[in-house]
């Protein structure tokens, strides 16, 4: 766990985050995941993840779940053209850190994924 007791004047947000989550955080560069017609892992389990943003860039609906047994038409639907799912440790607890899987009725749907994790 990284500690920075010497936050400078004005680093208000950094201080707030460190107080809230106990550590500094960073943005993990986004990745693109092509969702298949079979269960596709979107993101791996990460116990340091505090936030997650998933955007459906495709035209079709992608279904999301936290189990690899996800089936067509089940899970959380994320329709295409920019629909977004966000998770926060503050609201969603450890769900934020789990594996996430997706499935779509046809190939061609891509998810853009960002993580916020502690250092």
């Amino acid at each position, binding site marked *: 766990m990284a500690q920075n007791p010497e936050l400078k004047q004005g680093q208000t947000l950094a201080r707030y985050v460190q107080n809230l989550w106990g550590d500094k955080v960073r943005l993990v560069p986004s990745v693109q995941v092509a969702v298949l017609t079979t269960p596709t892992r979107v993101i791996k389990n990460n116990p340091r993840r505090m936030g997650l943003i998933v955007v*459906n860039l*495709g*035209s*079709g*609906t992608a279904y999301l779940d936290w189990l690899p047994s996800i089936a*067509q*038409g089940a899970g*959380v639907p*994320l*329709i*295409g*053209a*920019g*629909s*977004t*799912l*966000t*998770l*926060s440790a503050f*609201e*969603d607890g450890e*769900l934020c850190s789990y594996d996430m899987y997706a499935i*779509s*009725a*046809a*190939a*061609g*749907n891509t998810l853009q994924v960002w993580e916020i994790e502690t250092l």
Partner: protein
Amino acid sequence: MRITQAPSTARAAYYDRNMTYVSAGSDQQGIAPHAFADTWSYTVPAARKTTVTAVVNIWRRLTAAAPVGKVTAQVISAGGTAMFDYFVTTLNAIDNRHDAIITPNHVLIAGQIIKGNNSDASTGGTCDFEGWFNGNEYDA
């Protein structure tokens, strides 16, 4: 968890919903008399729909029967929701034929089946049977 669905001004047209071209069929040549049997089928996948854009149902007498019996050939949607072409004949001259090329524009929902089948109750003789469908499959 927060979910923000993209604003829905109008649902995307079917051709913008992950559309793919699908086709199924069979081309049987020199077939002897036989009981009613399915020769090909296609099932609409879950969460998808299919518009049937073309159906072909062709029969040709290859060699004469003795005696001829009823010959049938059809392309249908299983469950009786649609009959695209149904043909019955007792014609027995070589090159007697039935040609059906249809553009039905019929929508099948998930789980529905389109299939071809035929039978020949003759004694002897052979026939050619050809049946096909083309369609557009897309998100339901």
